[in-house]
């Protein structure tokens, strides 16, 4: 009996220590706001994604100041007035793939996943649940997702003077190719 318990313990620890993790720090996040008077879009090419294939943990992290806008003044206003990036420098997502068993990381293919977790922007955190896609090619995973967030959920205020220039909900698109850690 002792031996079986010991063997079980060694196996469970060794399995967790060798959990396959995938990482990138150059994933891309873009957001789009479409309003009657103006369309706003920006891209961040320095997004970090960590995926644990064993547990299904999926984490994102990005620096707000790394969003690039075509119009410099828009970028300044975004950082200074809307996202207050000096106070809240990062946006993060901490969650899990809820249907992890449906993904086979060793078999090439396209897998639709459900992701659930906490999204933190501008000092506010909200639980979100969205579909996403994992594409396995040559054993390497890529992640992609597209969803909307309500600016008011993150206390991002739109002054009435620019009401027709910024939409209340913003579309976010995430994509990244991950490498084994």
């Amino acid at each position, binding site marked *: 009996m002792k031996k079986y318990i010991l063997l079980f*313990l060694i196996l469970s620890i060794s399995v*967790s220590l060798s959990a396959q993790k995938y990482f990138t720090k150059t994933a891309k996040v873009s957001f789009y706001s479409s309003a009657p008077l103006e369309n706003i879009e920006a891209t961040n090419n320095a997004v970090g*994604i960590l995926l*644990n294939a064993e547990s299904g943990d999926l984490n994102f992290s990005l620096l707000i100041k790394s969003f690039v806008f*075509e119009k*410099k003044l828009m970028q300044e*206003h975004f950082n200074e007035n809307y996202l207050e990036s000096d106070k809240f*420098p990062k946006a993060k997502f901490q969650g899990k793939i809820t249907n992890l068993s449906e993904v086979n990381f060793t078999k090439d293919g396209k897998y639709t996943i459900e992701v659930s977790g906490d999204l933190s922007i501008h000092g506010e955190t909200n639980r979100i649940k969205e579909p996403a896609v994992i594409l396995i090619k040559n054993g390497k995973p890529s992640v992609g997702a597209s969803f909307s967030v309500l600016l008011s959920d993150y206390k991002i205020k739109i*002054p009435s003077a*620019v009401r027709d220039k910024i939409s209340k909900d913003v579309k976010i698109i995430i994509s990244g190719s991950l490498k084994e850690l």
Partner: protein
Amino acid sequence: MIPIKKIFILLLFPLGLFAQAADELEALMGDQEPSTVYVNNAFKSSRVINGHSMEMIGEGVLDFRILHRFGLVKNGLKDLFGLDQASMRMGFDYGITKDLTIGIGRSTIQKELDGFIKYRIIQQQRGKKDIPVSLILIAGSTIRTSTFTNPAFDAFENRMGYYYQAIVGRKLNDKFTLQLAPTYVHRNLVETAADKNGMLALGIGGRAKVSKRTAIVLDTHPILYGARSNYNKLPLSIGVDIETGGHVFQLHLSNARGMNEKAFIAETLQDWGKGEFQFGFNLSRVFTVKKNTSTSF
């Protein structure tokens, strides 16, 4: 027999690893903050009210500026407190790089053209290097194009004026900014033999932010040398900046009628003490000429 406690602790070990995923990501990302953080938005625009501010307008950006100065407030209701009379300046500033701006403008007063080059030598920053102030140098000249009342003076060089300025400014915190600007103004033609061609002034500019998009600004240029006593007066302006989208509106009260350095420093004859001040507004509209591709400016 293996103690139950030890088994329990060993089984919990893997759970501890999973809960650290978020911290692990942050550790892998490393320090993403850029090594140098440049200080921006010390003022909401490239002018305090009349004088240049320590802010530059950015590479590839065109700033269209319209300035209005109305008549004296003390003219009263019949003149709509001065609104019935207006003089104005129209100008264009262009950011060649984030540290170099050029600009031209024309004022209705004396139909005066003005042009300048503004170069930022040092930008206030923290990080790799902690630099507490921004240092900007400006050189400009003015050309009066209106007719001389006395044709004896009508020579091209008599139309010209020059100014040279160094701005030392610091954004003290999110709410307060202060800048000092020693300025030399030279006028080729002055009013009388008693007036000096060259004047030295110390520009003082300050801003107090009252909300995310509004601020109170103060702009004054006390003349240290070259003023004719009881003639040249201290130019002082106080105003409110309102920022919306691509515009900055500024409403102010001032005794300085001129809208370029030579005019408002050397030719302010109205006296605050005698209630000789007027409403004015500055409107700045920014256009993107060259698309931005950088995260730092």
